[in-house]
């Protein structure tokens, strides 16, 4: 097990290095640079050239890469070209909103999605199953921004129950923190609930048709025991995989929700940085996100052993 974890961590570093090189080249080879954006639309060529010189953008690419890579190895991710603030500080400030939104979304999605999936499988072909099919179609097909605008219109503008937008840090009070995250969490969760519920249902249906389930029923096991002690445990691996992928995807994929609800998270940070060509931010976030993605997958792989003792590494 320890050797396996070590191998995965080493491979994570390799993945991050490849991502780093790729992103560095992609950004530098794309036309346009931050100097033109800093200078503004009416800037003269001289003004732009001066800024470019100061930013070191005239240096050869290998020199720029070495500067950057040495910095990263020394734990210095550099400063934002625009604000001049350390990139790690900017990222850390944006982590809390994104992680808060992601965790609440996963709690809601997993609890509702798995419950729906179990119910639908248990009563396959019944009302709950049909409702789940309709809900899944809705969750998959309606874009998150449409759901977001609808929730804002109804719950914030018409009912005045919840705020339209913004984020209050958790140290600003648990109530305000939670209230500002209700609408974005619901908007973001619908798709994930549909996804998790469908996978749970399919996985549970497969297990429920196994011989040992019929044996359990013949032995007089209660519905609760059959569903939660026997079926769910055996159906757990694919469900856990989906949850892991969803969580990893959430961390990097909340940008639309963050935009609609004006949450200053990582997604917004990256999009703004891309628009501004703020190279150090883009590079750092993508490298860290790729590392996080690999680590979440590793965690999921290790969690398999808890659900299914037959799995060994």
């Amino acid at each position, binding site marked *: 097990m320890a050797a396996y974890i070590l191998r995965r961590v080493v491979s994570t570093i390799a993945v991050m290095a490849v991502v780093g090189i790729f992103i560095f080249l992609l950004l530098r080879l794309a036309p346009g640079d931050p100097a033109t954006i800093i200078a503004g*639309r009416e800037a003269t060529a001289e003004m732009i050239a001066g800024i470019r010189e100061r930013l070191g953008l005239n240096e050869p690419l290998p020199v720029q890469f070495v500067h950057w890579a040495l910095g990263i190895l020394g734990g210095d991710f550099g400063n934002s070209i625009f*604000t001049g603030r350390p990139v790690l500080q900017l990222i850390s400030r944006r982590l809390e909103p994104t992680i808060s939104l992601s965790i609440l979304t996963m709690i809601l999605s997993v609890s509702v999605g798995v419950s729906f999936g179990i119910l639908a499988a248990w009563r396959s072909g019944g009302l709950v199953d049909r409702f789940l099919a309709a809900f899944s179609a809705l969750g998959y097909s309606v874009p998150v921004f449409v759901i977001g605008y609808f929730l804002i219109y109804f719950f914030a503008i018409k009912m005045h129950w919840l705020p339209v937008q913004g984020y209050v840090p958790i140290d600003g009070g648990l109530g305000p923190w*939670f209230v500002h995250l209700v609408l974005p969490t619901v908007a973001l969760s619908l798709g994930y609930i549909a996804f998790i519920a469908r996978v749970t249902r399919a996985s549970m249906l497969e297990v429920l048709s196994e011989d040992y389930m019929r044996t359990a029923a013949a032995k007089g096991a209660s519905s609760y025991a059959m569903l939660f002690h026997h079926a769910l445990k055996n159906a757990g691996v694919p469900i856990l995989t989906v949850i892991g992928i969803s969580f990893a995807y959430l961390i990097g994929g909340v940008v639309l929700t963050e935009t609609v609800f004006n949450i200053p998270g990582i997604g917004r940070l990256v999009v703004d940085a891309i628009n501004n060509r703020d190279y150090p931010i883009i590079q750092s976030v993508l490298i860290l996100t790729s590392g996080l993605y690999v680590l979440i997958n590793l965690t999921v792989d290790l969690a398999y052993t808890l659900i299914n003792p037959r799995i060994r590494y």
Partner: protein
Amino acid sequence: MTITRRDLIKAGVAAGTALSMPSVLRAQPSPDDARTVRMVMSDLTVFDPIRSTADITRMHGFAIYDTLFALDSKLAPQPQMVENWDVSEDRKSYTFELRDGLNYHDGSPVTAADCVASIRRWAQVDAGGKLIMARARDISKKDEKTFTIALKEPLGILVDALVEGLYLPIMRQKDADRPATEPVTSNIGSGPFIFNEALAKPGASFTYDCNEKYVPRQERPDGFAGAKVVKVDSVIWQNIADQQTALAALQAGETDFVLEPPADLYPVIESDPDLELQVLSKGGSTLYVRMNFLQPPFHNVKARQAMLHLIDQEAFLGVMHPDPRYTQTVTSIFANSPLYSNDENTEWFKKGGDPEKARQLFQEAGYAGEKIIILQPTDWAAGSNASQLLAASLRKIGVSAELAPMSWSELAARRANKGSIEDGGWNIFIADYSIANPISAAFLRANGNEAWFGWPKNDDYEALRAKWADVDTLAERQALARKMQGIWWDFVGGVFLGHAVQPTAHRKALTGLLEVPGAYGFPMWNMQKTS
């Protein structure tokens, strides 16, 4: 398991409590809210006004820095930090004396040495500033409150140059001693607002607190001039990227002001009894077609004249700014400037919209079907739409126009290429400019390789432009403006697509917003929230 009526009642009470929780938890309006103005602005990323021409950076500058002079509502420079100023009889020596009570946010006094350093830094970048430095024999402090600018030759535009063009913020000498290409690292000025560093959240919000120690002038506010009286405790700039969300926040009272609501949301704003649209920057901007004078076919004046005949401004305004209440056609190179706009030499092309004449002129220019590249800025809606319409208009008269879609950043890099199309060059791009004098407006230069992108060249025009700096009176400049425009429309330095102003949206409870004649933002002083 059976469900009893009591269980249902319990569940109902629990659900009701849960549903009411958000409104209980939601922050209730506090007395402080009446003294705090929240404004949805564009994202502030560059803080040093010397480093960027972006409006948002300039507005940041208006808030925290003070200026020597300020433009009033008639675009006339009025003393702001300056108490008295004087020019010698030979017009070669200017003396400026600062008024009392000027202090930086860190408590240190504003000195003449700060002003000298600030002017020198600004002059490294601004066209008017460079002209001052070229003519200056000496710029130095006389005493703690007085400084002088001694010239080798008179410069009639000197005071105007200090207030027009790139914003000239007065900074502490230790900040202003940095080269103009290096950003200042502090946000300490002597203006009416203090930048709250502790509450700064880049990409999300910035807070400006009232500078209670600021000593305003006694005159009433007039444009950017007069008394800068801050009537609120704080102003918070919010960066809400999604305009629909920004409007919803405005409707819900979570913000008081939206800088640039999109035109398709105007009806929603106007139908809300609590909201209104208001144009604060009266100057607006003029969109124009810039042609590359160095490459065919636009190296030939006939092809440039063809563009003047081709472009129907009303059609272009229709795709750039859908609401005609905020647009107008424009034929003067000084756009809608109340000082210099005129009708010299505009009769022959009127307002364009004559494709047959344009086709004929392209033929006379020797156009032989070569590809014409139009750089299309896809991240700027007005410019992108206008580029598409221009390409379609050119194709209709047999010109092989091809769009090159790209971001503004990419466009800004490619437009610097003076080479042929085969070498990555270009023929046309669309940009905008705002009223200014021909010294500071880069678009209005025609000095060839030294000119702005497109590199127009006309020596007669340039001779008149140089005179602009020397004359002293408004009447003389207005006469020059007519002559320059006469020549401009002969060699066709650029072609206009129309003029537009951008209304802001705000809650009616937010009053006292100052309307200004320029185009580069507006001041935040004087506004307040009424109940």
